[in-house]
């Protein structure tokens, strides 16, 4: 069997690794003890999470009135955070599904963590619409189940219901895709575990995976078909989220560019979040040999492309709004009115963070720098939060009737819930990093001979 790969392609696995070394490296964070850094970050995240639980309890106990919403701005941080998190939750499936279909080998070093991140982000996203219902205990009303009202069914014409279906399908399919990929890796840890409790847990988690030839054949077919299904699925989810806005009649929301532009924005922010997490993780979990400069640079390239799409969408929205000559279009979130009005800071934060700053990634030196990539990722994450804030709050702050014009002021509860979800997200991710194989080791082993540094060098020097 030929393992040839062009010498010009940079190795994806650094150092002289053998199959056994890969097992050791991936199992090390699970078998070892957590260090001080892990505990510090975990405790901070846990405190934020608990604060969030407090804020959520207060909201449910008292009512949505404890938020800063008012008559005109009836959606604000909650839906901003919802769209932000769901957008972040797009990168994982994109990496594991779309890049699988395109046969991009660099996906294998990062897909596991990216998918974990996706799932945890979708959890956070799902919280917001549920809390926003006010009466959370009636949340099951969004499901089309026979009930005592007649039966009064759900309204299948509503984009909000499409959301329920899209997000639950996306979450469940992502979990299954992720978990099926985890089976061989859990089995690897099971078969090397020495502590009885650990062995028991991984025995259970690995579902009795043995690695028979027929199982692998099915495994690969299932992965391919799931990738084929998940690719349109991931595009549909943010398309449907954008329908929440695009099918309404609010100026600034009622826009046909929303679906593609939301999807590009989601990939943009999702990759930024993957960068944020993996740049830290490769250091903390000693995965430098598997998550390399090549991975970081490739992700930066995706960020650059999707950031460009988003920027073109901003410009076309701005231009069309201005060109229409309609006075109602002069207070939408991308307009002269927004740039100079009371929300000028939010407008310019968006333009700077998403439009101007990421252009620095055109410079190869910056694009391949870990520190710069990390800073860029944080700035993009901020920018994408502002995008949703602008879409929701700026558009709602100015209506057809000037007497309703108002501003939004978040309360400590709004802030608490948002911080709480960030804490919850990190709590989940940190627990994951200590208990799950953070790199898809079985897949990485299958490319070791073609893309491993040691093998490549041996072959090229022959």
């Amino acid at each position, binding site marked *: 069997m030929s393992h040839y790969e062009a010498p010009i392609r940079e190795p994806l696995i650094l150092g002289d690794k053998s199959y056994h070394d890969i097992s050791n490296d991936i199992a090390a964070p699970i078998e070892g003890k957590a260090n001080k850094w892990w505990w510090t970050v975990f405790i901070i995240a846990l405190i934020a999470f608990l604060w969030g639980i407090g804020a959520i309890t207060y909201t449910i106990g008292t009512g949505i009135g404890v938020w800063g919403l008012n008559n005109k701005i009836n959606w604000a941080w909650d839906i901003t955070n919802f769209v932000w998190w769901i957008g972040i939750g797009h990168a994982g499936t994109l990496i594991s599904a779309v890049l699988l279909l395109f046969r991009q080998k660099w996906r294998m070093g990062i897909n596991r963590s990216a998918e974990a991140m996706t799932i945890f982000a979708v959890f956070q996203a799902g919280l917001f619409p549920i809390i926003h219902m006010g009466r959370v205990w009636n949340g099951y009303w969004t499901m089309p189940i026979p009930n005592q009202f007649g039966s009064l069914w759900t309204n299948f*014409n509503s984009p909000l219901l499409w959301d329920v279906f899209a997000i639950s399908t996306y979450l469940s399919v992502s979990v299954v895709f992720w978990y099926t990929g985890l089976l061989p890796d859990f*089995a690897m840890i099971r078969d090397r575990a020495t502590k009885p409790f650990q062995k028991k847990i991984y025995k259970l988690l690995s579902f009795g995976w043995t690695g028979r030839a027929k199982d692998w054949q099915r495994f690969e077919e299932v992965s391919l078909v799931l990738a084929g299904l998940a690719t349109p699925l991931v595009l549909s989810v943010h398309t449907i989220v954008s329908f929440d806005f695009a099918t309404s009649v609010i100026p600034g929301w009622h826009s046909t560019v929303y679906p593609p532009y939301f999807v590009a924005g989601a990939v943009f922010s999702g990759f930024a979040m993957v960068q944020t997490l993996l740049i830290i993780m490769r250091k903390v979990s000693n995965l430098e040999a598997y998550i390399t400069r090549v991975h970081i640079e490739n992700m930066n390239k995706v960020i650059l492309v999707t950031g460009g799409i988003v920027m073109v969408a901003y410009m076309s929205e701005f231009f069309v709004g201005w060109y229409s000559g309609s006075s109602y279009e002069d207070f939408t979130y991308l307009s002269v009115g927004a740039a100079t009005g009371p929300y000028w800071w939010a407008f310019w934060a968006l333009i700077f963070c998403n439009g101007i700053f990421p252009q620095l990634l055109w410079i190869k030196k910056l694009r391949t720098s870990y520190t710069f990539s990390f800073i860029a990722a944080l700035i993009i994450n901020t920018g994408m939060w502002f995008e949703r804030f602008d879409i929701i709050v700026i558009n709602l702050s100015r209506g057809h009737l000037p007497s309703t014009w108002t501003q939004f002021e978040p309360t400590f509860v709004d802030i608490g819930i948002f911080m709480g979800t960030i804490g919850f997200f990190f709590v989940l991710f940190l627990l994951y990093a200590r208990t799950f194989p953070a790199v898809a080791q079985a897949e990485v082993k299958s490319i070791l001979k073609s893309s491993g540094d040691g093998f490549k060098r041996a072959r090229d020097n022959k």
Partner: protein
Amino acid sequence: MSNKVIHALYDDDDVLLKAVKDVREANHPIEEVYTPFPVHGLEKAMGLKDTRIAITSFIYGLMGLGFAVWMMNYMMIQDWPQNIGGKPSFSFAENMPAFVPIMFELTVFFAAHLMVITFYMRSKIGPFVKASNPDPRTTDDKFLMEVTVKGDEKELVDFLSQTGAIETKIVEKES
């Protein structure tokens, strides 16, 4: 009835692939091969049939689509038609565009989940299933070939060692 098998352990995928071909050529039946990662070309070398799991997924997808159409038609058009926002629900054809997102989502939902369940059932994996790989090293870096003993035991062991096996073990298998 019990029958004897030989477990031949290899430490390289390329050696294994060559060995599988040689063993089959020498007409020794290969019971099973355990590998730590998918070895490309192994299923061809072993002569495994193509998996039909993708076809099941397609059928499940059609079921999902059918279910979505039936469900929305029943709930919105037949059982309780309502005039929502000036968009009356009195005919499926006229309302269909609004149903497309959920038709799509349920197609994917059924195709993905039922296919994975089929995979788990066919490969006999699932919660509380005991792993049956004969050597724990096969999930790490070793490859194990299980060959049925037919004829001379000693000769087969020698033959397997020649193909590059680093260890061979004769096992009585209950079946």
